[in-house]
């Protein structure tokens, strides 16, 4: 495998006041041009992991250990100037709600110009670049969009504007935090098609965060499954979805209705709820909900290890189920 574009090693994120661990010892890397999906439920640490990559962790939460290596620098210890030059230029992010990224009282054209200016880009042909960026993301009338405010656009169109804004400086890595969750399914499909097309055209790496297994199934090359702040399984999208080895991944997949199931068999549910990451200690966080759990699972922490299909952190792999 080629040299990774970005490498996250042993990242741990905790709350500042009471030192509660929210993301625990997370390591993974993204190769140039590779798309990686992070799947997890609320509280699994997927969003905090993504925000760490940009030095954008919210107040009250900080990375307590680990490193994020990008272009020879550690982003966790980099100064503000370095981070600022990397954000937008090298790593860009799109969010679930475009209104968190767009200024409601500023015309869209001006907002994109501002992005170019503030990241030291060439501003001589800035307007042209913005209009091209708008048409690339499928905004029907770029000139009109340039003079419009965010509220004049629908949710899907705002999402396109945010994507144009994220791509305008040609980043190496696009981080997407559930950008299609709030959209209607036919609009979601349009946005996914657009992202796919731009990613191929630019050979851009991508980190796609979602709770929706169906969305990443056809979008990414590799999937990371997070549970209670830790990675529990990683593998190629094909292996994770067809031969999940961690009982949590297998349980999640089994809990979804299948379009091919003519008899509509009862859904398999996972009893209980995910624990708070900081309460887990030296045990498998999934053990209280797991049918395979035994004494070992409750008293020691399984580490991520390579098996024939994926890498999974479990003492009792699912084995071949096909």
């Amino acid at each position, binding site marked *: 495998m080629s040299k990774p574009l970005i490498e996250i090693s042993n990242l741990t994120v905790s709350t500042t006041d009471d030192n509660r661990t929210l993301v625990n010892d997370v390591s993974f890397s993204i190769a140039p041009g590779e798309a990686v999906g992070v799947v997890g439920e609320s509280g699994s640490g997927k969003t905090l992991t993504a925000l760490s990559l940009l030095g954008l962790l919210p107040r009250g939460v900080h990375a307590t250990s680990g490193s994020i290596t990008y272009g020879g620098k550690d982003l966790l210890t980099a100064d503000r100037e370095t981070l600022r030059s990397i954000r937008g230029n090298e790593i860009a992010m799109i969010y679930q709600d475009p209104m968190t990224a767009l200024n409601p009282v500023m015309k869209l054209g001006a907002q994109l110009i501002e992005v170019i200016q503030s990241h030291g880009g060439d501003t001589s042909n800035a307007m042209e670049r913005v209009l091209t960026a708008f048409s690339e993301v499928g905004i029907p009338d770029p000139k009109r969009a340039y003079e419009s405010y965010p509220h004049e656009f*629908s949710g899907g169109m705002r999402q396109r504007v945010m994507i144009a804004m994220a791509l305008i400086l040609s980043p190496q890595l696009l981080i997407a935090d559930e950008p299609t969750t709030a959209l*209607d399914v036919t609009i*979601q499909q349009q946005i996914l098609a657009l992202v796919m097309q731009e990613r191929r055209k630019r050979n851009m790496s991508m980190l796609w965060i979602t*709770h929706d297994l169906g969305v990443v199934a*056809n979008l990414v090359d590799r999937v990371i499954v997070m549970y209670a702040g830790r990675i529990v399984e990683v593998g190629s999208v094909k292996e994770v*979805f067809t031969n999940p080895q961690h009982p949590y991944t297998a349980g*999640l997949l089994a*809990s979804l209705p299948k379009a091919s199931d003519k008899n509509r068999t009862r859904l398999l549910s*996972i009893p209980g709820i995910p624990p708070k990451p900081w309460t887990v200690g030296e045990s498998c966080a999934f053990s209280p909900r797991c049918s395979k759990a035994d004494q070992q699972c409750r008293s020691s922490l399984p580490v991520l290890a390579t098996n024939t299909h994926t890498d999974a952190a479990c003492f009792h792999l699912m084995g071949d189920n096909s």
Partner: protein
Amino acid sequence: MTLSITDVTKRYKIRVTRAQVNALNGVTIDLPAKKTLGIVGESGCGKSTLARMIVGLEQPSSGTVTWNGEPIFDKARNMLSSKHSNIQLVFQDPYSSLNPRQKIGDSIAEVLTVHHLVEKDAVQARIAELLTEVGISPELAHRYPHQLSGGQRQRVSIARALASQPDLLVLDEPVSALDVSVRAEVMNLLIDLRERLGLTYIFISHDLSMIRHISDQIAVMYLGKIVESGPWDSVLENPQHPYTKALIAAMPDHTEVGNNAYEAPLKGEVPDPASMPTGCAFHLRCPIAVPSCSTNAQTLREIEPNHQIACQEVK
């Protein structure tokens, strides 16, 4: 017992622009008791307006909605004086439908006492019974909503809806706000309750996979109209309307892995209901539209037993 919705329209006036929005446009549904109707559609299709109308929170601008032959809206106006309400609504987000400062037992007790459903000394026993019914230990009756998980809160909302022993439950996106691993158990609970209590469901969702899992009949809505309806398997396995086909194609499917092909099945967006397209409301996005679609309004017609579509181009 049947739910009959006959040629219902709902118009709203936007105060500032005086524009008229047709939220529902000639909707007709007949649902026999103990069956589940799944209503699927995107934002602005009128599915939530229809839900509110079925529970009597909205009055139709024209047409009728009846349960057992009795108009629902009139009935709702007298709801406080009637002993029970036969129809109840369960919302998407249990966090906003439960009072955060009220213990869950008390929020159920409120329903029981306001409607005088049980004698005072039987209230606690009935609360325990209702919580058990939805799989929650009665010991949790003293908890506040924030002390429960999302799945438990949704179970409490269901228990609260069941307090008046309804015949019909309108479920408006009941699992959409829940984490993936708890959706299955709430779906299983709904199916169990339906069997055990003989309930009739209107199950509203944008998620076709959940609709497919629970429905006997399915109605696909677009901009205030039903464009296709019928038994669940004919609608989903033999879809005829181009919008239904597009919705099915747009459903993210976790069983089809790694083909890395996302094709947008539909161009454009749902038009603003305040400036509704003429003719068939779908013609602007429709892959098979012909010029006459922009002038001919479409009505439902039967293409196989009980399976109806509103499209002139499908032969």
